[in-house]
């Protein structure tokens, strides 16, 4: 499988995602510079964590104007898999590819620690090899990860089974403990925690593997 990892000025977990995809999962991973107008031949995209454009103005607010975003929107509209992690989630939300907003953490401070997530649905290409209710120990590392949306949007997300992962120990005040969601087409997902930093037992947890394994699984052409 060919993964593209989008690099904005200020992305800093691009390397983590690249390392997980290529060294841990043995897939091809290519870095895509933000001013590219085409993505090249990729099967899936990762928008990594970091501080794109220094998070100036608002997290993701400037990144959404990057030339590459046009290509990403087209890729998503055509059904391509797009995973936004942390800052990548913020950019997807700012770009309108996912609903809601990510506000300053309830505690007003950056928080980096291991948390536990519950997988709420296996009906996405990002969780298709997981079971509903499965728990994952993964780290968070963000200052603005409090998921917010109006009641109607939240109800719709729940009703349409689009809340993909929820916090068991909510670190940031996210409404309804939402840690990650997907779009209506179920091919675009964003989450605040870092599954790419939880793919090797050496670093404390392998629980994040299931997301990448699901993506790889769903990209493999099913036998005719």
């Amino acid at each position, binding site marked *: 499988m060919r993964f593209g990892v989008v690099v904005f*000025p200020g992305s*800093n977990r691009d390397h*983590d995602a690249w390392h997980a995809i290529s060294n841990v999962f043995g897939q091809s991973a290519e870095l895509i510079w933000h001013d590219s107008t085409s993505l090249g031949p990729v099967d899936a995209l990762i928008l990594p964590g970091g*501080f794109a454009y*220094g998070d100036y103005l608002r997290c993701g607010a400037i990144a959404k104007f990057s030339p590459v975003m046009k290509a990403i929107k087209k890729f998503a509209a055509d059904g391509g898999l797009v995973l936004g992690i942390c800052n990548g989630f913020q950019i997807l939300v700012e770009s309108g590819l996912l609903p809601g907003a990510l506000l300053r953490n309830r505690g007003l*401070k*950056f*928080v*980096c620690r291991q948390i536990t997530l519950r997988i709420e649905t296996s009906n996405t290409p990002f969780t298709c090899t997981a079971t509903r209710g499965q728990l994952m120990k993964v780290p968070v590392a963000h200052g603005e990860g409090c998921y917010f949306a109006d009641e109607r949007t939240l109800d719709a997300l729940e009703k349409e089974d689009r809340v993909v992962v929820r916090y068991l120990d909510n670190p940031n005040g996210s409404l309804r403990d939402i840690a990650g969601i997907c779009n209506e087409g179920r091919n675009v997902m964003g989450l605040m925690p870092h599954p790419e*930093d939880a793919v090797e037992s050496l670093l404390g947890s392998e629980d994040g593997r299931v997301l990448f394994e699901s993506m790889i699984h769903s990209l493999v052409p099913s036998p005719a």
Partner: protein
Amino acid sequence: MSALTASELDKVRSILERDPTETELGIFTVMWSEHCSYKSSRLHLKKLPTKSPRVLVGPGENAGIIDIGASPSGVPYAIAFKIESHNHPSFIEPFQGAATGVGGILRDIFTMGARPIAVMDALRFGPLDDPAHADRNRRILEGVVGGIAHYGNCFGVPTVGGETVFEQCYNGNPLVNVFALGVFRHDEIFFGRASGLGNPVIYVGAKTGRDGIHGASMASAEFTEESKQKRPNVQVGDPFMEKLLLEACLEAMKTGAIVGIQDMGAAGLTCSTCEMGSRAGTGIEIDLALVPQRETGMTPYEIMLSESQERMLLVSEQGREEEVFAVFRKWGLDAVTIGRVTGDGKLRVKNHGVVAAEIPNRELADEAPLYDRPHDVPPYRPAPMEAPRFRSNHLTADLLKLLASGDLCSKRWIWQQYDYLVRANTIAGPGADAAIVRIKETGTSIAMSLDGNSRYCALSPREGARLIVAECCRNLSTVGALPVAATNNLNFGNPERPEIMAQLVETIEGLAEACRHFETPITGGNVSLYNETLGEAIWPTPVVGIVGLLKTAAPVTIPFKNEARAVLLLGGLGSSDDTRFGGTQYAKVILDTMWGLPPALDLDYEKRVQAAIREIVNEGLVESAHDVSDGGLAVAMAECCTDGIGASIEVDSAARPEIALFHEAPSRILISTALPQPVEEIARKYQVECASIGVTMKERLRIGNRTMTWIDCSARQLDEASRNALEDRIANQNA
């Protein structure tokens, strides 16, 4: 402003053979400031060991570099590391002061070509419950931690550890010492040298503004009431800009067009130009009109002395400028040729073609005045030798109080604000005895630890310094790493006072002895003097950072893992007497006083204990290991009980319980193991004691001697005492 002295001014006149211009005077003042020239400490720093077969680059460059071995395919790798202080700015403006402290040391690392992969911080504040200064101390703590988080997190370097200590002597003078470490191949090392006549001198990064002018001189003076007005001297950091600068510099270095590169840190454009010229034996001519400027109407004096952040100076091969510019354009950064390398050895600064300064590089950079400050008096000691009479009413309550105290409590509130994971290398992060970061390219890992103990150093600077090095090495050995090289940050008061100068000299000599003994040469560091406010000096505070090498593997951690395991104290129970008990945390927290001497250290024995623990850990014989240090055996035991497993311990000691439980004798490591026999065999081989002191059990910690129980407490209560203590103290004050 610490201006030049009359004799220094005479020296300037004799170098120039005329009176200096205003700009030249400014240039000499910053370059010859204590901060840039080490004029009071240089003479003594020469006593430090600086060489070993692993040391590729020692003191004098932007950072020290050591060899860490080759990748599996045979490519040799190295690490660059250094510690630096940002004490004065962090007092005046805690958030920006600390943030730019991180920014400065990161540039020191990547200017050499290394990618930063770890940061640690040693922080010192006044107590959060100080009757007069609690509010200010809390504000400084929150600002400093916020500033470090802001800069490191955005830049994308993990902050993997450090230490935080509270003492009254830091009420008016907090310390912020930042350590950074980077990794690269041997053939990727760059130096700050302006070689090659006619080569272009290129300015890259942020534009120059009026911020930070005379920061280096400010850092070389004591604090007075007027210091509060020096806020404009503190620089403002932009970690996003620094991240771009990092990526652009590393990419530009790959073009092969860059000859030399140096960051603009203290003393900005002045320091980078004259040092690069001096190292290469060349001259540099620049025109300030070409320097990208953020403000209008800046004078040559201001441009040369500005300490605006996120700027670098580089020299490229003539005719290959465009390759360099293309990289910086890609990253959206300014890159402008501002001058040339010349053959006359002079720093010639023009402004719109008019010469504003013309100074010989070598004299400016390397011929700064050197002082042999008087130190023929005993070091100042803030405590008596005589021990007071003391007796505990309740040892378990004492332990809980210690665990909740500022120095010993969990620092979770601090390190959760730091991204300690970014780059996916952190094997052991904050809270461990030593941080461990893997090097993906080599398959090996680097362990690192920062240590300081100003209480010990206040009682005896020499013994304190030796103890700090021993402990730092012990922290590394406890996780199985071989200590190989060190960096140090010497934070002291006014060296013009002989009793302070004596502290500095004794400390350096103690460090030298211990670093020689443990074979950890000092490859660089920083000296921060004049840490005084309104005439009151901080206690002598050397901070040592040592790095060690180990194979990449799951780490041995502090908490007990299973019930019914043997608990061993490698190195034995150690001993203390009343005099040697006066610098302990027990004396500080429970008795609220200090006296006597620091714990006694036998360097040979310590080295054997460390060799033994390394072998024991690397043979996979232990389930947990923890260095016994501040707070002694009882506190170390409590720290092993955080995962719900406790222990029943019998201490076979003739000492009184207060001393048996809380003395801080070095050379001791607490381990739990299912295989006590092979552990004891290794201890015998190294001729060190290995006391079998008990067995792990469910949920409770019990410590006593044959007849009495001294401490009896649930593991949960111990954990709770420590876990939220810092947070609660801050919240209470904010309420």
